């Protein structure tokens, strides 16, 4: 249909073409990330899978690639993360509860909040140096699991705090008012009405934060250095963790050790993806329950 006065130049064809180009650009952006992920996974699998067997999981380190295993690193990672959780969960959730439920809304609280968000962006190697200075040297813990666990704990503390705060903030205020109206005091309100509702969110955030800690090599490298561990470490023993073990193997000149690194990456990925899956399951389970 022709317009009566031609004061418009719609240029429909051109607009469609521009739209099409942008569609293509954005789709390509998605492809880049997906494809690179798959290339990475496939390359790792091809290289590492032949080396991935039961012996690999149960052997300690060795100078001979065919005898080398990742047991010390797996156990080091597990025990480190347990102590990390023991430290970071109570402190992180406690800080979140304070900030959300107790802290007056004033300038000081604001400054604290901003700084916690900033801390979440500090490079992990900086935390390594902090841990080296404070836990290893000042507190004379030595280059042990506990020092590494506390360092990782500090590293993910801001994440735990932020996730917990978000979960606590998502609790409808009506629950708090309902509990207050029954004569509950502040702590009873938190314990009885806030935390039960916030728990799934707190758990999810905590698991994701811990899986971040499991993947960190840099701070542990600073804390423990490259050590040759042929035992299951206790909290006050020297230790290594999986990313660090992988890092060590990648640095070896022999081709076989690089394949070992790939096998280690597969194990690490399986652990991380399982943790993320658990986090998703926890979230879904409680979501459906509260919507029923």
């Amino acid at each position, binding site marked *: 249909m022709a317009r009566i006065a031609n004061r418009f130049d719609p240029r429909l064809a051109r607009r469609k073409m521009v739209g099409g180009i942008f569609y293509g650009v954005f789709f390509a952006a998605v492809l880049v990330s997906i494809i690179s992920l798959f290339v990475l996974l496939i390359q790792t699998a091809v290289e590492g899978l032949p080396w991935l067997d039961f012996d690999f999981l149960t052997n300690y380190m060795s100078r001979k690639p065919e005898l080398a295993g990742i047991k010390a690193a797996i156990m080091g990672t597990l025990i480190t993360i347990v102590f990390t959780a023991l430290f970071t969960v109570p402190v992180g959730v406690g800080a979140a509860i304070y900030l959300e439920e107790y802290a007056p809304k004033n300038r000081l609280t604001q400054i604290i909040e901003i700084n916690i968000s900033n801390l979440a962006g500090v490079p992990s190697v900086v935390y390594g140096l902090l841990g080296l200075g404070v836990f290893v040297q000042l507190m004379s813990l030595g280059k042990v699991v506990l020092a590494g666990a506390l360092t990782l704990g500090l590293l993910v503390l801001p994440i735990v705090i932020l996730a917990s705060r978000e979960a606590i903030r998502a609790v409808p205020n009506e629950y708090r008012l309902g509990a207050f*109206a029954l004569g509950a005091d502040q702590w009873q309100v938190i314990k009885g009405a806030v935390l039960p509702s916030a728990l799934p969110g707190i758990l999810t955030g905590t698991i994701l934060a811990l899986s971040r800690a499991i993947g960190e090599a840099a701070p542990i490298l600073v804390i423990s250095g490259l050590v040759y561990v042929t035992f299951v470490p206790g909290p006050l023993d020297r230790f290594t963790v999986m990313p660090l073990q992988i890092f060590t193997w990648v640095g070896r000149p022999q081709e076989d050790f690089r394949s070992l690194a790939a096998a280690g990456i597969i194990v690490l990925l399986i652990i991380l993806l399982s943790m993320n899956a658990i986090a998703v399951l926890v979230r879904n389970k409680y979501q459906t329950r509260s919507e029923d």
Partner: protein
Amino acid sequence: MNYAAPIFKVNRLNLFYDAFRALNNIDMEIRRYSITALIGPSGCGKSSLLRCFNRMNDLIPTARIEGEVLFEDADLYSPNVDATEIRSRIGMVFQRPNPFPKSIYDNVAFGLKINGYQGEMDEAVERSLRQAALWGEVKDRLRNSALDLSGGQQQRLCIARALAVEPEVILMDEPASALDPIATLAIEDLVRELSERYTIVIVTHNMQQAARVSDETAFLMVGEDRAGYLVEHGETNQIFTNPKNERTEAYITGRFS
């Protein structure tokens, strides 16, 4: 106890949120074992006034009052009165049903536990649910989530939860405004029944509801300065059939809202 004496006396009450005055010089008395309805247009401060009776306004950091509220002739806002203790004696039911995301049983038991109830828990839960006319509907599924209940059932559960701690007064903030007409009638019947044993103050938007359930009605309006003030307070019958104030008459006949 002198049953003729009012349970609440409000003397020259002003409520501020920061510099904003929400209530202007309220004087009123609440009669024991009666239902007092607070009505008035939106923003007239009727909910704010209701929250002065159990110190829920304390939870708003900027809120501050002048004047006094006497509960059983004792100043509710005196420094040696514990707001937590007061709230277990003066229960509250909110506009939107707000059961905790726990089981039906645990919802009722919550108030009992936090207040250190010494008696038999199961009995108290059953008694409260019966009083709230909910027992028959839920007795076979006490362990189910309270969120599985319908809106009307949830609100009666909230009433049961409030009754469990054996309050003397129940404050209701538009308790039926989120419910359908049938659930609303159930709540109204329940309110009438409860008034034999409790003093009830109910905020409502719905004038028919005020006329149906209440013994006394207080009409509030918004002043020029946006502060709510009390226009008229009397027997519900008198307020609705023979209001003394022309603004009351204009409001109840729907000439403005």
